[in-house]
């Protein structure tokens, strides 16, 4: 468990360094169980920082979302470090970004937070509806402890944790300049059960499952924008010439959009689950990404975001790669 005081002290020290621009962390949100990413620029602000089961956001996304405005002539870009707090999955995103030169190691200061799993807000807000006052939540042994206005509630982990966390194999940061607290035990078995369940169904059943989901997509692009691995300056799926996917929202275009995105994430997705979390119409996008993660692991023994030296899956091959389906 990460000690809050320790966390804030480290943050204060970090932000006091001359070579650090700002620190990206989590703070209590505006109501209930919500948490908001925050950007600490003054040592004083470090008091806002928290680390709890509520800290779902993958802050690595902000390493690449930041716009670079044209600089006035003669002005030098600010290349000071960005300090970022990462959970296990977030840290894999950072590693994968480094592999793909999305970020520069020397421009990062990584604060690792071993993570015992974050909440699925949909589950939680269903369990404790209409709670407006900010709630403190802590990890307990195999359970989650909620400090609700009407008193303390303890809930078994399985009931409220995000699925990605129940499946998590890398709860501890794989890269960090400083790690807060002890490493924690992973309880994911890497068996991709939910994927297998869907695989077991017939093709038509699978199609109607996804057709229903993609049909509900409103193409708000939150899945793409939140994704720490989606950082093309100009997404090919937004392009008008050539137009791969029309702007129209319908089964055909929405399906094409989500399959293209899933494919572009093959061998890159670090399974942080953000796309699924942010989807306003609850499309189970992780079911899609995990399918490819599964194939990539089974066929090529590859898991992204673990080794900064690794060659990207889609820009490499082995002469003896499987090819059982080829005529």
């Amino acid at each position, binding site marked *: 468990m990460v000690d809050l005081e320790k966390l804030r002290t480290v943050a204060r020290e970090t932000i006091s360094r001359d070579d650090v621009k700002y620190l990206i962390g989590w703070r209590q949100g505006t109501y209930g169980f919500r948490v908001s990413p925050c950007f600490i620029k003054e040592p004083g602000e470090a008091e806002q920082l928290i680390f709890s089961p509520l800290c779902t956001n993958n802050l690595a996304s902000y390493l690449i979302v930041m716009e670079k405005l044209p600089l006035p002539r003669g002005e030098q870009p600010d290349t000071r470090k960005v300090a970022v707090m990462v959970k296990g999955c977030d840290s894999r995103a950072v590693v994968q970004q480094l592999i793909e030169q999305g970020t520069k190691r020397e421009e990062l200061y990584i604060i690792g937070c071993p993570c015992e799993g974050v909440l699925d807000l949909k589950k939680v807000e269903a369990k404790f509806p209409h709670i407006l006052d900010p709630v403190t939540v802590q990890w307990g042994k195999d359970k989650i402890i909620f400090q609700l206005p009407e008193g303390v509630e303890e809930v078994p982990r399985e009931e409220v944790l995000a699925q990605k966390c129940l499946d998590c194999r890398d709860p501890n940061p794989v890269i960090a300049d400083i790690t807060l607290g002890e490493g924690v035990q992973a309880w994911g078995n890497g068996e991709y059960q939910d*994927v297998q369940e*869907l*695989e077991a169904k017939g*093709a*038509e*059943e*699978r*199609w*109607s*499952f*996804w*057709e229903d989901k993609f049909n509900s997509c409103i193409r708000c692009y939150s899945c793409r924008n939140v994704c720490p691995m989606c950082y093309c300056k100009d997404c090919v799926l937004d392009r008008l010439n050539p137009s*791969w996917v*029309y702007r*129209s929202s*319908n*089964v*055909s*275009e929405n*399906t*094409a959009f989500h*399959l*293209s995105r*899933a*494919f572009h994430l*093959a*061998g890159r997705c670090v399974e942080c689950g953000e796309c699924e979390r942010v989807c306003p119409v609850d499309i189970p996008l992780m079911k*899609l990404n995990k*399918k*490819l993660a599964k*194939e*990539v692991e089974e*066929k*090529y023994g590859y898991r992204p975001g673990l080794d900064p030296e690794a060659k990207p*899956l*889609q820009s490499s*091959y*082995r*002469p003896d*790669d*499987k*090819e059982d*389906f*080829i*005529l």
Partner: protein
Amino acid sequence: MSEQQYEPNVVAFLCNWCSYAGADLAGTSRIQYPSNLNIIRVMCSGRVNPLFVMNALQQGADGVLISGCHPGDCHYMEGNFYARRRFTLMKELLDYVGVDSRRFNMSWVSASEGAKWKDVVEEVVENAKEAGPFEQFRRNKINW
């Protein structure tokens, strides 16, 4: 349209050096095969963007074929190795969302395999026939 006379529409991407030449050979040897498959020529199977497959299905293809040189024979040494990886994953993905896996095929056909080209076309067209028409994923005026 009844299954009997249903004529599938297959779009094929062939590499210039092996498979396209193989298809040429089939021609010069006057080997007959179904006319349901139409070829788009690229220099290497490594050029075929996996998103082409989806786009073809969206734009009205009932089946798609990618064909390149046998592993190790690629005119550009490695192109077909990349293609193999990309389309192995794309095939899994399409199958997973319920696109009948018979709609997507891949083959290695060398410049000397005119006869094999015929077999491949027949199999691919047959596959697409069995899979039947594919309106669900089509980009069509139903949505307009």
